[in-house]
C-alpha cells in the first residue's frame, strides 16, 4: 500500500508541477475548426495555442502523441454514475427538492473508468421514476478530488423530468411500496401541470415579497420550499429541464405544457421517437440527447430507429449522444461513429455529438467541447482515430492535468493486484 501511495503521490506531484504542457506530433481534431497535424499548448489549465508549429517555452512538459489523435474531452449528457444511495427519490411524483449534488460520490470507480474512456465532463442525473425528478449537476471527472472539487463551477444546474413508462409504472406498486399517482401518461401531464401551478403561486409570493422589501417595507419572508424553489428557478430560466422521454405524443405534450407555463425544455433525453416530431422540437428550441442505436428494451422504445440522431440534426435540432450507463460511457467515441453509418453525417458532426453539442446543451460550450485557445484544457489523446473501433485512449487531461495515463495504469495494475491479494490473505489468516 505504501508503494502505491508513493506512486500516487509522485503522480500528484507531477500533476501539480506542470503548468505548461505541449502535446506534439498529433492530429488535432478541434471539432469547431476542422483538424490539423500539429500541437496543442496548454498553460495554467487552459488551451493556450493550437497550431502546426508551436515552440515549447522553457520548462514545458512535452507529451509526444506519437502520431496519435487529440480531441476535446468527451461530454456525456446523461449518466447516473458517481451517485451515493438510490438514484431515484421514487416515493413522490414531484421530487424536485432532492439534489444529486448532495450525493456525488467522487470515489465511484466508474468515474475513473469513464475518464479512461475519454470522458471529462458529465451531466449526472436523477433517475426517471418521477414526473418531476431531482436536481441534476454537471461534473468534471477530476478523479481523486473531492465531491466539491468535481462540480463544474458555473455550469447551469438542471432538473430531471420523466415521461412515459417509468414514472407511470410506479402507479402499480411492487412489493410493499405504496401506490403512487400517476399511473397513466395523462396523469403525468397532470402532475407536471399541478407542480407548475404551485410553483407559479410560490414565485408570485416571493416576487411580491422581494418587491415589498425593495420598497423598504418590513415583512416576514415566505416559507422557503425546496421542492418549489427549483421549479421557480426553471420558470426564471436559471435551471435547465432535462426530460426523459420516448414517444412522440408525450414529447409534444411536454413541449406544449412548457410553452403554456412559460418555461423551456433544454433537452429531451433519449427521445427515441424524436425523429417523428423533429420540427416541433426544433421550433421549441429543445436539444435532444439520445442513444445511437439502442431500442426495443421496452414497449415505448419499439419505434426507435438508428437514424434518429441524423434526422433530428438535419431538421435543425441540437443533438448529442449519451450513455445512461456506466459501461457505455467508456466508449462513446464508437457510439458517435455510428451516426456516420446511419445517416451519413460527417466525421466532425459525429464528434460534435459527444463534445461540442452536449457542451451547448449544458450551457458550458464557452468552456469546453472543442479545442480552441482559451477553453479548458480537457483533452483526450488516442493512438488511432477516435471514431475507429481500434482506437485506445492514451492520456486524458482535465484542466491541463493528466487524470489518466495508459502506461502508468498498465504498470500499476500488477502492483495493485498484489496489494489487494495481500489484504485478502491477511483477512483470511486467523488472528
Amino acid at each position, binding site marked *: *500500500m505504501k508503494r502505491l501511495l508513493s506512486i500516487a503521490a509522485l503522480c500528484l506531484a507531477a500533476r501539480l508541477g506542470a503548468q505548461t504542457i505541449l502535446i506534439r506530433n498529433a492530429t488535432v481534431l478541434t471539432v469547431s475548426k476542422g483538424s490539423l497535424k500539429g500541437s496543442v499548448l496548454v498553460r495554467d489549465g487552459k488551451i493556450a495555442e493550437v497550431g502546426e508549429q508551436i515552440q515549447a517555452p522553457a520548462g514545458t512538459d512535452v507529451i509526444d502523441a506519437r502520431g496519435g489523435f487529440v480531441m476535446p474531452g468527451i461530454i456525456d449528457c446523461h449518466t447516473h454514475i458517481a451517485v*451515493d*444511495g*438510490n*438514484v*431515484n*427519490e*421514487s*416515493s*413522490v411524483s414531484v*421530487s424536485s*427538492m*432532492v*439534489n*444529486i449534488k*448532495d*450525493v456525488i*460520490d*467522487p*470515489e465511484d*470507480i466508474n468515474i475513473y473508468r469513464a475518464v479512461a474512456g475519454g470522458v471529462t465532463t458529465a451531466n449526472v442525473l*436523477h433517475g426517471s421514476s418521477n414526473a418531476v425528478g*431531482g436536481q441534476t449537476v454537471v461534473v468534471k471527472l477530476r478523479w481523486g478530488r*473531492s*465531491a*466539491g472539487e468535481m462540480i463544474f463551477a458555473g455550469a447551469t444546474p438542471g432538473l430531471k423530468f420523466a415521461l412515459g413508462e417509468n414514472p407511470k409504472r410506479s402507479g402499480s406498486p411492487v412489493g*410493499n*411500496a*405504496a401506490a403512487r399517482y400517476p399511473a397513466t401518461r395523462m396523469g403525468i401531464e397532470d402532475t407536471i401541470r399541478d407542480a407548475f401551478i404551485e410553483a407559479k403561486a410560490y414565485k408570485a409570493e416571493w416576487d411580491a415579497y422581494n418587491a415589498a422589501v425593495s420598497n423598504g417595507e418590513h415583512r*416576514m*419572508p415566505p*416559507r*422557503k*420550499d*425546496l*421542492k418549489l424553489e427549483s421549479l421557480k428557478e426553471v420558470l426564471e430560466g436559471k435551471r435547465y429541464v432535462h426530460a426523459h422521454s420516448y414517444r412522440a405524443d408525450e414529447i409534444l405534450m411536454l413541449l406544449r405544457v412548457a410553452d403554456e407555463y412559460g418555461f423551456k425544455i433544454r433537452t429531451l433525453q433519449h427521445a427515441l421517437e424524436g425523429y417523428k416530431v423533429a420540427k416541433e422540437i426544433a421550433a421549441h428550441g429543445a436539444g435532444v440527447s439520445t442513444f445511437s442505436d439502442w431500442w426495443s428494451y421496452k414497449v415505448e422504445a419499439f419505434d426507435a430507429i438508428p437514424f434518429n440522431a441524423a434526422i433530428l440534426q438535419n431538421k435543425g435540432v441540437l443533438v448529442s449522444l449519451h450513455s445512461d450507463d456506466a459501461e457505455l460511457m467508456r466508449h462513446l467515441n464508437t457510439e458517435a461513429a455510428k451516426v456516420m453509418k446511419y445517416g451519413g453525417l460527417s466525421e466532425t458532426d459525429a464528434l460534435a455529438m459527444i463534445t461540442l453539442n452536449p457542451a451547448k446543451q449544458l450551457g458550458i460550450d464557452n468552456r469546453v467541447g472543442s479545442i480552441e485557445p482559451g477553453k479548458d484544457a480537457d483533452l483526450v489523446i488516442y493512438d488511432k482515430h477516435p471514431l475507429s473501433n481500434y482506437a485506445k485512449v492514451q492520456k486524458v487531461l482535465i484542466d491541463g492535468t493528466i487524470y489518466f495515463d495508459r502506461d502508468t495504469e498498465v504498470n500499476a495494475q500488477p502492483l*495493485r493486484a498484489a*496489494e*489487494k491479494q495481500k*489484504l*485478502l490473505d*491477511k*483477512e483470511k489468516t486467523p488472528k
Partner: protein
Amino acid sequence: MQRRQERWKERFTRVHETLTNCLPKASARMQLLYLRHTETMERNRRRAVLALLRNAPVLKSPGPQYPRRPFAGCIAVPALCWVLGFGAFASAQQAIAIRDATVVTVSGPTLRKGTVVLRSGLIEAVGPEVASPADAWIIEGEGLNVYPGLIDGASNWGMPQNLSPGGMGRGGRGPEDRPGATTWVKAADELQPSDPRLERARSAGFTTAAVFPMRGIFCGQGSIVNLAGERAGDMVLAPRIGQFLTMSQAASGFPAALMGTIAYIRQVYLDAGRYAALKEAYQREPRGIRRPDYDRALEGVLESKRILLPANRRVEIDRMQNFAAELGQPAILYGMQEGYRSIDLLKKAGAPVLVNLRWPERGPDTNPDQPENARVLEMRDRAPSTAAELAKAKVKFAFYSGGLDQPRDLQKAIKKAIGAGLPRSEAVRALTLAPAEIYGVADRLGSIDKGKIANLVVTRGELFDDNTRIEMVFVDGKRFLTAPETTAPGGRGPVTNRGNER
C-alpha cells in the same frame, strides 16, 4: 461453565473459612468479598430476616448454570452478615477509601500509590498523601488499578426497543409529513433502569454513557446517563446533549433515497429557522399577528444545541462536514471507519468525532468468490488504526460502543485499537475525559479529581490487558461488582438487576 463453577466454589469456600476463622476481625480481603454482596443484602434485607425466621430460602431461583452448593453460601453470607451487623458498610453516605492503589487520574499524572476517598457520590479526595477518614470503609488497593468510570460516547443502552436502531418504517409524502422525526424525545425521559445491558456495560467498566434515541432520521435528543440507579431520574447527569441524526430511508414513502434524506433535513432546518423567527416576532407583539402553529418537531430541532451526523467513508466525512456547515450546526460526526484516511479533513474542521468500536467485518453472507473492492478490504484492515491516527493528529475523539454490549466484545474491540498503535493512555482518555469534554461535562466527569462524580472502575491489572479483571465499578459512589459474562443475550428471559444477587 466448568471454570465459572470452580471460581464460585472457591470464592464461597473462602468466605466460609474467613467467617469461621477471622470473625469478628474481618480482614480486608474478607471485607471485599463481603462487599460483593452488600447490594443484594440491602435489597433483600427485609426478606432475609423473614426468611431466616422462617428458615426458608429467600432469593429468586438461580439460573440453571449456577451450582447448588455455592448458592447456599450466597444466601448465608448476606444473611449472616446482616445478623452480625455489617449492614453499616452498605450506606451510600458512608465514605469509602481505596488505599494504596495505582490511580490513573487521566487529568493528571498517574499515582503509583494513591488513595481515593469517595463520599456521598462524589470524589472527596485523591492523592498520594491522602489520609483515609476515620469513618471510611477501607478497600486495600494493593495490586488494584483505579480509573475514572468508562463513558460510552454514543449509546443506546437503557433505551426502549422503539428508540433502538432499526428500520424507520413508513415514510411520508414529503418533508412536511416529518417522517422519522422524533426530535422532541429525550433519552433521559425514556430511560429504563431495568435494561439488562446496563449491568453488562458496568461489567465491562462502563459507568456512564451518552445515550441517544436511535430510531428514524431525527432520532431525538441524547442525555448523559449513569449506568446505575434505582430510578431513571437518579441516573441523568445532563438531559440534553444533542440531536442524533441518521441518513436512513423509509421502508416505503418519503424519503426513499439518501438525497431525499438530505433534502428533508435541509428543509426541516429551513423551517426551524423560520419557525424561530415567527415565534420571536409573535413574542414581541402578539397583537395583530396570527400565532405561529406549534410544531413539536421544530421545537425539538431548536432545543438541540448540537447534532450528531453519521460518517464512515471519507466521502461521507467530507459530505457531512459540509452539510453541518451549511446548516450552521455544531456537529459531531460518528462512525469513522475510514477516519484513518480522512485525517486531513478532520484536522481542518477541528470538530470532535466519535469512533465506532464495532469495527467493520466481512458480512457473514458475503460470497467468498465475489471479488471485493480493494478499498473495502483496506478499510476493514485499517479501520482500527483510526483512533491511533486521530490521537497522533490531536483530533479530539471518543469511542462509542456501536451496539456492542458484551464486556468481552468491548474489551476485544478496544484492544484492537491499541494493537493498531493507539497508546493505552489515549485509549483510556477516549473512554473517559474525551467524551466528557466533547459533551461539555468534563467539570463533573471523566477524570479522578476532587469534587467530580464518584464514577470509578477498579481493575486487577491494567485496563484492556489480556488478563485484567475488572473487580468493581463505582457509580455515584455506589459499588457494583462484575457480573460473569452472560451467555447469549436474552437467553435467560427478562433479567432485572440480577447481577449482584448471585
